[in-house]
């Protein structure tokens, strides 16, 4: 993640606050789409596509990093086709039921939200993000929790990697970790991560950390930082409500 946030691109240079606002609204809009409005939702792919391109982030990395989460998100809608059998569209011998469409919509929503969050994280260092959160008056407590959670996830992964290596060096020819060792392995992992996390936090305190993220405060927002979210949000709203307008129009016409 650090490698990605270090890239220098127009997207990376944007003010963290403007990216945070854009992403939040993007996610809200994506979630608000109607469950059958697949075509409207599909247009929302434009936003991540633009960010991948301008931010020089290879999309492959994004999907590789999220390979464990994606299936979970996609699994959410799997049952829909069995419950909702209203036929929506007939293509020759194929009948698309409402269930199938809502399943695809739900999956797409999940993927889009994940991708957007990933892009935010990949183009904005976490400390800057925290600073931005403070600026929109998020409670300090919550922002600090967010930062620490982010750091501790990495501490835990690192500890797990080290422990697995140490385990395997002394258990040659064994695949993975034998189930008899799971309990102590997990316990140790937790204790070690907690110790390390505690010391890391102390070390932040010793160097004057007081939850204000002054060190991450960058430049003042410029004209680009205002234009970007305004343009993007307008675009989202157009995609979102354009369809509604169509439908309204159709209703009115039918009524007449």
């Amino acid at each position: 993640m650090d490698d990605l946030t270090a890239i220098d691109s127009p997207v990376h240079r944007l003010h963290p606050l403007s990216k945070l606002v854009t992403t939040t609204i993007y996610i809200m809009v994506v979630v608000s789409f109607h469950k059958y409005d697949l075509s409207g939702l599909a247009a929302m792919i434009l936003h991540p596509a633009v960010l991948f391109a301008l931010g020089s982030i290879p999309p492959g990395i994004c999907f590789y990093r999220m390979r464990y989460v994606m299936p979970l998100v996609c699994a959410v809608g799997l049952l829909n086709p069995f419950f909702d059998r209203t036929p929506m569209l007939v293509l020759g011998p194929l009948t698309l039921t409402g269930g199938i469409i809502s399943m695809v919509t739900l999956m797409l929503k999940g993927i889009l939200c994940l991708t957007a969050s990933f892009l935010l994280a990949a183009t904005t260092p976490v400390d800057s993000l925290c600073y931005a959160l403070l600026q929109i008056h998020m409670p300090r407590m919550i922002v600090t929790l967010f930062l620490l959670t982010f750091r501790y996830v990495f501490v835990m992964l690192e500890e797990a990697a080290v422990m697995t290596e140490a385990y395997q060096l002394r258990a040659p020819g064994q695949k993975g970790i034998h189930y008899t060792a799971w309990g102590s392995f997990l316990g140790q992992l937790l204790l070690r991560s907690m110790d390390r996390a505690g010391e890391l936090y102390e070390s932040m305190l010793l160097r004057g950390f007081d939850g204000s993220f002054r060190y991450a405060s960058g430049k003042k927002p410029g004209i680009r930082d205002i234009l970007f979210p305004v343009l993007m949000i307008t675009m989202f709203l157009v995609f979102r409500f354009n369809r509604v307008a169509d439908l309204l129009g159709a209703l009115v016409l039918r009524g007449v």
Partner: protein
Amino acid sequence: MIRLEHVSFEYESGCPVLDDLSFEIQEGEAVGLVGANGAGKSTLLRAMLGLLPCAGITVDDLPVVRENLSRIRKKLGYVLQNSDNQMFMPTVFEDIIFGPVNYGLSRQEAAQKAGEVMEQLGIQHLKDRYNHKISGGEKRMAAIGAVLSMDPEALLLDEPCSALDPCNRRRVIDLLNSLPVTKLVASHDLDMILDTCSRVILLSEGKVKADGPAYEILGSRKLMEDNHLELPLGWQSRGRTGNC
């Protein structure tokens, strides 16, 4: 500058780790804190920084209590025994400016300060490297840099040379000698203590076993061996070899 009066401490488990310690470290003094593994050196340093609840310590006449912690921590720079736990920003540079910016310097000033410190330590090449992708010794040098950049009035170092190659070890020793600040170095690298400190406090099972001039204490074979240490290598065989 740092005064201890009857300081005792035990972790929850019961047996005392620090046992009625009293001594004072004057401003500008360089003191070595020696003792076998588990003697309580790290615990003592952590107590001085207020990381452990522990009564009887004052720093510049400020008692180490919650209200004074931020002032005390600004005065004392602490280099942890394990640098992995000290570095938390993505890059070395960001880690080094973290402290100064928190204490009110602007980013430019902090960056300049960081530049100076990195040059002193000879780690300019690490500036934009990622903390999780550098070696243990490089990390240690960066951690020392992160503390020096805050211009502390006293340096508390916990095994500062334990991961360093001879060349970097020599560099740290020379740097410590060139800094006029108060120093408290916990280590069992006795040669290094001998090179940097004029006074030594020998800790054993949480008690001060000896306190006096470095040459006297480190030179006493009986004292050293009774406390699971040995004479500095330089005194065991003749002549020291060092070339950096």
